């Protein structure tokens, strides 16, 4: 159980808490709770789903206690339909190897996820980092599948903005992005 599921539990906790020490505490708490309640596990969901739910709830409890206000990057410009709108329109898809192979990339990716709101972070980690299905993510986070899809889309758009701002050539982004926003 630990070998198979500790990775996802740890990643969910790490991204939610933004702190390796607290992520480790959530990891321990999750498996201790799971072992204590194992005889009550009814097998109606997969073992992984059950464990990740315990981990998510443990992380949420800690976050509620912490109550530190954070600024998030997922407050996008909205169209009149309430749809998030891209601000940055520069193609940065051909990243040089020195960025791809360096620790810099990991740092940039971590920072961007950390700036998402908690409601988007859980969905993004489970779907796009840990590769869980929409249905399993919905069961873990107690959301509808439609809600998971909406949150995932918002998270991706917000992260794309952040990465564009970082990776796009300086100077071109602002001018192009602003022009695009003005055109709406």
């Amino acid at each position, binding site marked *: 159980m630990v070998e198979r599921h500790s990775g996802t539990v740890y990643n969910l906790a790490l991204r939610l808490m933004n702190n390796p020490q607290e992520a480790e505490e959530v990891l321990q708490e999750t498996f201790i709770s799971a*072992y204590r309640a194992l005889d009550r596990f009814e097998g109606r969901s997969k073992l992984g789903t059950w464990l990740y739910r315990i981990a998510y709830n443990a992380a949420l409890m800690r976050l509620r206690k912490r109550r530190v206000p954070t600024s998030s990057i997922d407050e996008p410009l909205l169209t009149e*339909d309430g749809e998030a709108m891209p601000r940055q329109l520069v193609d940065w898809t051909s990243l040089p190897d020195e960025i791809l192979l360096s620790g810099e990339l990991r740092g940039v990716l971590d920072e961007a996820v950390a700036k998402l709101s908690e409601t988007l972070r859980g969905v993004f980690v489970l779907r796009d980092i840990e590769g869980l299905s929409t249905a399993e993510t919905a069961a873990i986070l107690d959301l509808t599948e439609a809600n998971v899809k909406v949150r995932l889309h918002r998270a991706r758009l917000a992260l794309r903005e952040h*990465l564009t701002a970082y990776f796009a050539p300086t100077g071109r982004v602002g001018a192009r992005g602003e022009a695009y926003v003005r055109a709406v």
Partner: protein
Amino acid sequence: MSVLCRETLGMLSEYLDGELDEQLCAELERHMAECGDCRVVVDTLRKTVALYHTHGHRDVPADAKARLYAVLSLETGS
């Protein structure tokens, strides 16, 4: 930003996940063939997802895993 751009934007994640039905997919691709801005958004969105897929996971540190096994063996008495 045209109406088509807005509609495209709303469907991009489903498009990237292969969950869009065939007809909508074809409409979206027709629009993207003509709209450079939407092409940039879809390409960079795809790249964003791919980067996290490949580089987003963090392994549990070896010492953290050792401590986890230690607490669990105390807990289970094994």
